[in-house]
């Protein structure tokens, strides 16, 4: 806790500092800063340098922000270690690609459809696997992820196998086409911010607290009247939905997808983002995605040693910060102070929440 800004919950309502100095002012400032970076500085840099390489990195980063935030929802908050997340990303990508190239559906249909199809698969996967605990669940998701990869690779009639799908149309809304780098980035960034916002509201609500209870001790949560099975399935479905959205964005921005984009190593990369950022912390997931995408690109100058350096950095960051860059405790305090009114008290002293 910051010493200079007293925690509003600990003081009588009359002594609480004015809003401008506590939660709301800071929340406003931080949100403004983040939005300014996402929608001001990055597009300015893309336009200023005119570099397609930079724009491509920015778009990839935004897609991975969605992926790591969604994995954080199921692995960090609900405590189900999933190592097959890339497969649902792949299902979303293939769904969007097939719907738009074979049926000619517009982006506004393929985006939610990709999310829903991935969520449907997530639901089907979750139903039988949810009674597995800890490492058994992780291995089951690994197995299912690899099964989906094998199907994408070998079902040549539909997915064109290792050749991948080409010529996926770009993002397009009511005749407006995101065909320049800048508009493509902006479209992806808007969707990414919206996804993170939804996940943020979900995690930092009463519902999110139930998920945390589930993570800490599911038997105990069960005895407190929480429907454990259903919550687990719901969190998995939500995570796979957002993974599907990310897949659709990849398909529409890169115009080409192949099964190799959705292998086990990709799942591990997403998990690494979440762990390096801090399990259970949404700001951590975002920072982790930035870190793990931007770092390899920044190291491109040292060429052959790049992946060695990535491995070493990952190892060192886990070694020195085993709870992540923005550990959940820190992140929750940060969120309480800056972003959410869920923990603030109003004049009468009754907590405002989502109960």
């Amino acid at each position: 806790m910051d010493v200079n800004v007293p925690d509003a919950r600990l003081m009588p309502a009359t002594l609480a500092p004015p809003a401008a100095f506590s939660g709301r002012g800071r929340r406003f400032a931080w949100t403004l800063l983040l939005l300014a970076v996402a929608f001001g500085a990055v597009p300015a840099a893309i336009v200023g340098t005119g570099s397609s390489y930079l724009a491509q990195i920015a778009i990839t980063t935004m897609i991975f922000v969605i992926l790591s935030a969604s994995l954080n929802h199921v692995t960090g908050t609900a405590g189900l270690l999933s190592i097959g997340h890339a497969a649902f990303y792949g299902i979303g990508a293939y769904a969007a690609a097939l719907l738009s190239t074979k049926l000619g559906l517009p982006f506004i249909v393929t985006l939610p459809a990709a999310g829903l199809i991935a969520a449907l698969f997530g639901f089907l996967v979750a139903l039988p696997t949810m009674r597995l605990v800890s490492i058994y669940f992780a291995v089951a998701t690994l197995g299912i992820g690899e099964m989906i990869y094998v199907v994408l690779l070998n079902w040549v009639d539909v997915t064109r196998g290792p050749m991948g799908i080409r010529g996926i149309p770009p993002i397009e809304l009511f005749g407006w086409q995101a065909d320049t780098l800048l508009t493509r980035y902006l479209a992806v960034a808007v969707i990414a911010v919206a996804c993170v916002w939804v996940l943020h509201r979900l995690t930092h609500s009463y519902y999110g607290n139930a998920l945390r209870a589930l993570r800490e001790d599911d038997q105990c949560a069960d005895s407190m009247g929480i429907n454990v099975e259903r919550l687990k399935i719901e969190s998995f479905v939500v995570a796979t939905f957002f993974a599907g959205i990310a897949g659709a964005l990849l398909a529409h921005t890169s115009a080409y997808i192949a099964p190799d984009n959705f292998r086990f190593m990709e799942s591990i990369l997403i998990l690494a983002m979440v762990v390096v950022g801090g399990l259970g912390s949404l700001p951590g997931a975002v920072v982790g995605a930035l870190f793990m995408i931007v770092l390899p690109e920044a190291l491109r100058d040292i060429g052959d040693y790049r992946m060695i350096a990535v491995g070493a950095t990952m190892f060192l960051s886990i070694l020195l910060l085993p709870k992540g860059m923005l550990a959940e405790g820190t992140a929750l305090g940060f969120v309480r102070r800056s972003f959410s009114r869920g923990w603030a008290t109003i004049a009468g002293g009754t907590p405002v929440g989502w109960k």
Partner: protein
Amino acid sequence: MVFDVFFLQQVINGLSIGCVYALMAIGFTLIFGVLNVVNFAHGEVYTIGAFVGLMVITAMAPPLLAVVPLVLAVGAVSGVGLERIAFRPFRRFTDEASQKSRAMREATLLSSLAVSIMTREIMMHIFGGDMQGIPSGYLLQQPVAIGPIMVASGSLVIFATSAVMLGALQFLLYRTQTGLGIRAVSNNQLGARYVGINTDRTIVTTFAVGSMLGATAGILVGLYDGAISPHMGFAPGVKAFVAMVMGGLSSIPGAVACALLLGVSESIATEFLSSGWKDLITYSLLVITLVFFPQGLFGHGRERA
């Protein structure tokens, strides 16, 4: 009866692949037993075994039997090094909160993964990403006739080596003081420490033993297939991991049985399906096992983790 002979040959090929998976799965099982953490760098130990074997063969051209002890030694050294780099640092947190913390457990898992990425990339840097051929004098591909069945000599070598190593492992675990220590730590680490077992040393020993088995599997497959590459460790690593989980995480006979089952079902599946789909069999076996036997086929009521 052409089909039957062919079928039997496929079964024998499958069993020899299964033996390789079994050697790796035992390493996984031993390490998971003592530490309760999955070691994702096990596939790299297998690759190191294969490459060191190749280096020794090209440099000195020793007799085949001399390669094996050398690979064993290299496996032991890499296991000890791996433990020191990727696992030891995370055991410095001994308070209860850290030990129960999910973040800590996942951090250990990912540190082994990070080490495996580094090792693989360094090997790529040294040896290049392409397949490397084994000198033909060392290849274990001569056909041997057993009655009507033709078997590659490599299969027989793999059977013999696995049998010897499994026997040695049983001896180590059930007839020696060290094995008693490993079993004690695997059963209850804190309890083992209370009765005076040096848990750190036991864990290091376990890593050495498990990695010896993994490295041997690597060089055997290299000699059998005739080509090795820095990426060769991934597929058998995942298969061995699957075998361990199907067997019930902490049961060595279970891991061996499931590894053999996987090997045989894969090689039979290539007969009916194209080879691209054969991995589907492995993973569906895994998922079916987990759904109907959530503790694995040979697991027995392990405490909830």
